[in-house]
């Protein structure tokens, strides 16, 4: 099943299983939701172009026992809603001393989608991960897309920023039958290997796997690929366990590098796995320039598989 179908299944099941679930926002990309839209029309709203207000409305509703899924469409549009997401949703539980929880999902598509131009290619997940009180999910596979969204929409008590990379929508993968959830904070070892650990989430998971195949085929290097699934909570045990085993790590993320997710993870690894490290922790991020439009430039700045391969080669002795 495709990533988009898995996503749609999760949304539809959430609407079906819990009548507290409400959907505010039109999009979900190409996810096939027409049937759900009719069936649960009373709980589905198409708001005006007013991200700040409709995110805030979701937050207020969540405080009152509703479980909103907000569909923000392109992740850069969430910038409009940052005052509500960061200044209200993230703080309410702490500020109330544990009295007011905000079970809400802010769903958005992020990343370099291809000819989006800079204003439709952004990746704000580093800012959301920088914000205590928010959970951050960045699914890498169709199974993640479904399992994480179900958990966030049906089980979680906290606000979740849920980021899908646009280019994942048509990727395929196995998805367990029936309802199932993936609890946040459980990374997956997507590929085993002993020579180097590649840490990734979202779109970087298939890219890391592609890089790992190239490394194995062309260079005899066996990379272990960790799909983090969620940044907050972060599964340090799986990530650090792998790095302690391999002694080498490349962290890759589709966000800019300064205070980006690759840096955030590399700082943790370089500290906590220091004694195991045989080489520096390398980062492969989006290059430091506003994302340009033309294909060759857009491609150039992307955290492509070949850049991951090159980073691994820098730290794994040639074979």
């Amino acid at each position, binding site marked *: 099943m495709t990533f988009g179908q898995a996503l749609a299944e999760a949304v539809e099941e959430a609407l079906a299983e819990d009548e507290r679930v*409400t959907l505010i926002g039109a999009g979900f990309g190409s996810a096939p939701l027409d049937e759900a839209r009719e069936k649960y029309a*009373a*709980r589905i*709203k198409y*708001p*005006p172009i*007013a991200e*700040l*207000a*409709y*995110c*805030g*409305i*979701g*937050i*207020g*509703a*969540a*405080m*009152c*026992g*509703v479980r909103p899924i907000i569909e923000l469409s392109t992740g850069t549009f969430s910038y409009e809603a940052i*005052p*509500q997401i960061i*200044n*209200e949703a993230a703080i*309410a*539980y*702490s*500020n*109330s*001393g*544990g*009295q*007011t*929880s905000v079970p809400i999902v802010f769903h958005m598509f992020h990343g370099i989608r291809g000819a989006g131009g800079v204003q439709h290619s952004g990746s704000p997940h580093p800012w959301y991960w920088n914000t*205590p*009180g928010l*959970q951050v999910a960045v699914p890498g596979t169709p199974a993640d897309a479904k399992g994480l969204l179900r958990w966030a929409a049906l089980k979680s*008590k*906290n606000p979740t920023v849920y980021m899908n990379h646009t280019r994942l929508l048509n990727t395929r993968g196995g998805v367990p039958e029936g309802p199932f959830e993936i609890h946040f904070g459980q990374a997956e070892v997507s590929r085993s290997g002993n020579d180097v650990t590649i840490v990734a989430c979202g779109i970087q998971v298939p890219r890391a796997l592609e890089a790992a195949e190239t490394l194995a085929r062309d260079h005899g290097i066996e990379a272990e690929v960790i799909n983090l699934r969620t940044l907050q909570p972060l599964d340090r045990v799986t990530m650090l366990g792998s790095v302690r085993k391999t002694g080498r790590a490349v962290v890759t993320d589709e966000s800019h590098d300064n205070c980006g997710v690759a840096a955030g993870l590399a700082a943790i690894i370089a500290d906590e796995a220091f004694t195991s490290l045989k080489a520096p922790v390398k980062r492969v991020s989006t290059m430091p320039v506003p994302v340009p439009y033309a294909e060759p430039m857009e491609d150039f700045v992307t955290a492509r598989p070949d850049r991951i391969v090159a980073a691994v080669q820098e730290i794994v002795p040639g074979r």
Partner: protein
Amino acid sequence: MAVPVPAESALSLLQLMLRMRRLEEEVIHFQRDHQGLIRGHVHVYIGQEAAGAAGCSVLRKEDRLFTTHRNHAHVLAKGGDAGRILAEIIGRADGLCKGRAGTFHVADPALGILHTSAIVGGCLPLAAGAAYAAKLQGSGQATVAFFGDGAMEEGVFYETLNIAQLWQLPMIFYMENNAVLPGERSGRGSPSSEHSAEALSDIPQAFGVLTQHVDGTDAEAVLELMQDLVARSRRGEGPFFVESRTSRWPGNYGSVPSLVGGDTDISWAWDWQSAPEVVRRWEELSDPIMLYARKLLDRGALTIDRLVELDGSVREEMGHAAEFALNSPLPDAAGALEYAYA
């Protein structure tokens, strides 16, 4: 013209206003008398009590109230415990939010004050969300957002107003325009220096929202209006917009509130001439408590003795509340890390 409120209701309304006033005076005492106790800005509601008291007196416990940086007295009016409010304001363990929220964010979720934002306009979409929830759940709960004229400078006000009207959300936008000249309180409304509209209430009207204006120092006028609007919003009508106009208390001109005329003296109700010059005209024309007490005295619904007694008991209550707050321990430092996530 409204039918006068029955004497008992009138007295409890006046008492609530007095409690709000004395609460805020304790906050200013904290700041004045205890160095380092109030470490940052505080905002007091003095001069707006009629609006908050009358507005809240028609709400039930389960109704939702959203407020701003100027929240202390709203929380009290909704039923909040004075001691725990004051404890929150000075960051103590017994504060309504365990000392984590502070003056900017006093909230009492058990009373429908789920979260208080100090961001100008921040409460507006949250309130619309609560109304959306009430509508989805068919719960008949009312939602009132109290906010300042300043919020009409922020875009989020307009976005929220538009959605509230499009989705017909049962909420009341209660806008407190709190720096109006006394003679203009009852008119159609005046512009603010930071807003280009000739009258702020023209704006919600242009959005098609049912709009009212009221003299926010007139407790019974507010009461009558809010009784109607809250009842209608319980039936699912709305949204409604209210512009409530009050005149700035002289103690609110500096960068911190200050009791420029001393503590409120209840005798100004029948003898405003005795008020210190700095507050005299305000006590004559604009103090909602004095205006209402005077009206009740005139109407014979109240005697001077009863008023003095009432004030005495309120002062006693707030004295105890202040003591409670001051005696409440500081929260445990390492407890800071609790409550990041539910």
